[in-house]
């Protein structure tokens, strides 16, 4: 193969160990490098970008997607995908917005109810995908349709706004100048990162996605690890839905739709690969923030509605191309 002095870009899959480690490192740092580059460009383009208020705003707006994408990461890590998260987010806002019924005493029961609903959806996914072996994409597509339909049947298509101001405080009140929700999201994602990298469960998840057959032969309960990720993903989508409900104040049927594609895009931008085994929640956080900064810059610069999707598409494709290489194994 190529000589050892050649930089890693030209190194083939069978090249020596050194270059491959470099590429691996690049894939891990890539999302953060891209995020930094975007922030520098944003600072140069607009003086309003690097202000405490604006950064707080970006964090507050991206908090639901951060949680949803963290859950999506887990599922993609074990070689699956969950396209129902958007429907779960919408469903959560509608149920939450009507069950809470403008009463503070009902906040906790409401939260418990929707979390239970998340567990239920996750268990259905786990049963079908892990136990019966159905395709994760289509199975979650099916639940997505079911949930979207039930959502419409339940609400009749009209928005629900029984959210109390105290519940909305989650996103509107700040401690030390930072919205409460940012702390919540930070703790949640930190816990997930620690669990994924440091615990037995995390190693099992990585092993189940990397090579399920080998993992099974080495005594790992692959099915259990996979099932846990589907349940966690739905529960985290519910949490994302609750945060979104607190932010916008009304539950509506379509509000979560964009979360499906955005969460998958963020996870892939963050360096987690389809097919599983490689990546992590840390990268997905960068992926979400890349999207959030991009939208923020669009707003600050007053980019036209027509140009936004075009720029988004170009940045997403070229940004990922800078550091990802599709791995064939």
């Amino acid at each position, binding site marked *: 193969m190529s000589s050892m002095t050649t930089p890693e870009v030209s190194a083939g899959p069978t090249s020596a160990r050194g270059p491959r480690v470099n590429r691996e490192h690049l894939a891990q740092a890539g999302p953060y490098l891209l995020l930094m580059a975007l922030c520098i460009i944003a600072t140069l383009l607009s003086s309003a970008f690097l202000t405490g208020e604006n950064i707080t705003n970006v964090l507050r707006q991206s908090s639901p997607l951060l949680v949803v994408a963290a859950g999506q990461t887990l599922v993609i890590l074990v070689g699956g995908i969950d396209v129902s998260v958007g429907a779960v987010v919408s469903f959560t806002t509608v149920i939450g917005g009507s069950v809470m019924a403008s009463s503070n005493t009902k906040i906790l029961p409401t939260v418990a109810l929707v979390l239970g609903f998340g567990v239920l959806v996750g268990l259905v996914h786990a049963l*079908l995908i892990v136990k*019966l*072996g*159905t*395709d994760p*994409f*289509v*199975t979650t*597509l*099916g*639940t*997505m*349709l*079911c*949930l*979207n*339909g*039930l959502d*419409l*049947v339940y609400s009749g*298509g009209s928005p629900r706004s029984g959210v109390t101001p105290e519940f909305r405080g989650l996103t509107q009140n700040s401690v030390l100048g930072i919205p409460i929700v940012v702390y919540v999201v930070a703790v949640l994602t930190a816990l997930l990162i620690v669990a994924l990298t440091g615990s037995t469960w995390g190693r099992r998840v990585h092993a189940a996605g990397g090579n399920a057959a080998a993992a099974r032969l080495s005594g790992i309960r692959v099915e259990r690890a996979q099932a846990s990720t589907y349940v966690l993903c739905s529960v985290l989508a519910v949490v994302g839905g609750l945060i979104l409900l607190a932010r916008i104040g009304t539950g509506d049927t379509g509000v979560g739709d964009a979360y499906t*594609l955005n969460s*998958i*895009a963020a996870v*892939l*931008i963050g360096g987690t*690969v*389809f097919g599983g085994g490689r990546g992590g929640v840390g990268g997905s956080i960068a992926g979400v923030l890349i999207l959030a900064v991009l939208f923020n810059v669009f707003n600050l610069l007053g980019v036209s*509605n*027509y*140009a*936004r*999707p*075009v*720029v*988004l*598409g*170009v940045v*997403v*494709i*070229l940004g*990922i*191309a800078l550091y*990802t*290489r*599709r791995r*064939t194994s």
Partner: protein
Amino acid sequence: MAESGAAPRPAVRWDRWLGPLWLWSLLVVTVIIGFIASPHFLTTLNLSNVLQQAAPLVILVAGQTFALIVAGIDISVAATISMGTTLMMMVVNGDPSRIPLGLAAVLLAAVAVGVLNGAAITLLEVPAFIVTFGVASIVQGVVFLYTDQVNVGSPAPQMTEWGYRTWGPVPFLAVVALAFVILALVIQNRTRFGRWMYAVGGGEEVARLAGIPVKRVRVAAYVFCAVSAAVASLAISLRTGSGDPLGGSGFDWDSIAAVVIGGTALSGGRGGVAGSVLGALLLITMGNIMNLVGVSGFWQIVVQGAVVILAVTVSTVQTRRAQRLARTNIAVQKDKRRLKLRRQDR
């Protein structure tokens, strides 16, 4: 997995053209349910209507199948359909002499989208999901740009006439869809490119080592997918009054659902166009029956989701059984051979 590919099963041949038997059974059951549920279902008028409504999705799933066979996916088809209808309506704008120009513009634009998808996937080595997500975003933005986010243009009278024309019970659009599906089936089953697609989707490295131009096969699959979206958009524009800049939305999920219900795996290398067409017909027929019975649009979505889950479960169980059967067949053959060898030893 590997066994099912290696096992020589001549009985499977015909379903490459006609689709899996269990899907036909499901379709028949659906038709029987429709017959029982509503007296209006099994009438020439209604069935001819169903075929007309099904045409765009049927055409589209043929292309989406190719994207899935090469282990990819194309979520930009919805944006491509929006582009196709708006472009056609804007170019024609009521003037029949500009129809050929409109056709050429739509097909060329679609080929460009397909090449963009294929080139970005193969040259930049970015996952197909991300590329087609990005391209969908770009195309939709361009459509917003030239339509100003409002409905544009109008069809020539001839277009509408063809869109609603029927020969007896057979609608013109159904004939177009059938012709397109046959074209896709021939490409899939009777050409070198078709075999290459399965090879590339089944295992890229092996395909490359076998001398297959993997990248070109990939690009061609995405170009065919985009062209099928363009043809679907033309079918839509024959039956609508103006070009809707969001007219294609929903076709991305619907087409993927139909393809996978039809037995094509997202992991690539398996399945085929025929199953996808049956999947599409199943979804459309169910929608029609529910409309006739007066099920609300909201509940229709729920039922559609339930059927998707049911179909994928049945298809999984079926495939597993087939694989087990193939495995036992191999085992039996091996046993026989071993027995024979032992006898010869004696």
